[in-house]
Each structure stands twice: as C-alpha cells, then as structure tokens.
C-alpha cells in the first residue's frame, strides 16, 4: 500500500501546476483548464483523506465539486464565446474593459 502523504503530494503538485497555469497562460481557455486542474487536485486530496479516515463524506464532496465544475465550465465557456464575439481574441490581456 502507498502512504497517504504520497497521494497528498501528488495533489499538491497538481495544484501547483494549476496555479502556474493560471498565472502564466495568456489564452483564456487554457486558463479555464488550469482552474479545472486545481479543482481536480482538491478532489484527489479529498478522496485520499476519505479513504484514510474510512468515511464516505469526502466522496459526496467530490461529487458536489464535480457538479460545480460542470456549472463553472458551462458559464465560463459562454463568457468566452461572448467575449470572442465582441473582441475577436482570446488573449486574456485584452479583456480589460473594467480597468478603463
């Protein structure tokens, strides 16, 4: 069997990769996918803790997080389509209407 801390380590590294992706990506779609990766890293940690403590509550939380990820993807991609229709670009630096 594998240590609990090994699973948590994988989750932490995946979360860090998602953080880097959110900070460095200039394509808004890749930025969204980095957020999805961070959500999945949190899910992995929840499932590992759930298995270690032998309770199912973590599984229910993961189920709800998956629901929220689906809702977020639907609304976020709708926003991307609307922004692309108005600005003709997916460059995140061009979406600065609120700063002007």
């Amino acid at each position, binding site marked *: 069997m594998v240590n609990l801390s090994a699973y948590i380590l994988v989750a932490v590294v995946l979360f860090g990769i998602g953080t880097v*992706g959110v900070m460095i990506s200039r394509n808004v779609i890749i930025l969204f996918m980095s957020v999805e990766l961070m959500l999945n890293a949190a899910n992995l940690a929840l499932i590992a803790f759930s298995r270690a403590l032998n309770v199912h509550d973590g599984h229910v939380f993961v189920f709800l997080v998956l629901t929220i990820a689906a809702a977020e993807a639907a609304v976020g991609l709708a926003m991307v389509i609307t922004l692309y229709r108005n600005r003709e670009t997916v460059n995140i*630096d061009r979406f600065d209407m609120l700063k002007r």
Partner: protein
Amino acid sequence: MNLDTIIFVVSAALAVFGGTMMIAQRNPVLSVLYLILSLVAQAVLYVQLSALFLGAVLIIVYSGAILVLFLFVIMLLNLRGTEDLGTGSRPVSRTAKFILAFLFVVELVMVVRTGFFRGQGEIGMMTVQAPDFGSVKTVATLLFTKYLYPFELAGILLLAAIVGAVVMTRNPGEDDSPPVVTNSPRDNSPKGNE
C-alpha cells in the same frame, strides 16, 4: 516494490506530466488532450483509493462531457494556436510567477511532511476498510440522506448555470419574439365566413 506502488508511481507521473504539458502547449486542442491524459491517470488513482464510482464519474462526466465541451468551443472559435496572444504582463515577470508557484508548492509539501500526517501509517492500515467502500450504494445512501439538501441545491445550481449560459450566448441583435403573421388568407377566411 509491489504492484500497488508501481501503479501509483506510473499514474502519478502521468497525471503530473499531463498537467505540465497542458499549460506548456500553445495549441488549445493539444492542451485539452493532455488534460484528458492527466484526468484518466487521476481516475486510476481514484480507483486505487477504492473510489470506484467517482473514478467512473470522473472519466464519464469530466473527460466525456466537460472536456468535450471545451473542445467544442475551441473548434467553434477556430483556435489553432497561431493567434497573437501578446507578450504577457510586464509588472510581474514570468520568472517571478514560477518562483511564487514553486514556493507555494514547497510550503504545502512542508505542511504535508511535517504536519499531522507523519505519525499516520499506510492507507488501509489505520482503519479497517468496509467491503463495499466507495461503491455506488454507499455513496448514494449518504448523498440522499445526510447530504440531501446540498444535493438538491446542486441541482438548482446546474439549472441556473444552464439558464445563464443560454442567456449569455444569445445573439443580442436577434429578435426573439415570435414572428407575427399578418394578412394571411388562411387565417382570415374562417372569420369572413362567420
């Protein structure tokens, strides 16, 4: 090194590799494919942690529905990775972002290594695992009894997301009132007979 450890190391390496390649790609289609690779490797980790139901849900819902939605949007917008994405933000340099994220990971790893997990043994050694741990029945029982209200609220959230997505992507110039038929002879003829 037994089979469990080998499966864990291969899946973890694939998950991290997929995530890294995802943020390194310029072409969004390749990016989605690498994210799918990472998610399938994570589903293997779920199954290894006896979360059979959620492993299946991760592949079916995430790789099968959400990432296909991403691919659909990428192909709808016709993104090929050749767009002009500018030079990035000047105030915080790219190196500073990497250092910041690396320090964040190091901090979390320190918490994991020095925190309250150190005294714990291996997974499965701490508590006796139930025979049907992670099955559909046990998860669903909890979902429909203890967590019934969050479950119903998640349904409302999904409905709100559907309505929001449809309202947002509707073409603003489009007239959405039904077409009015005027001077149609077939509509007028019964009235004339009366």
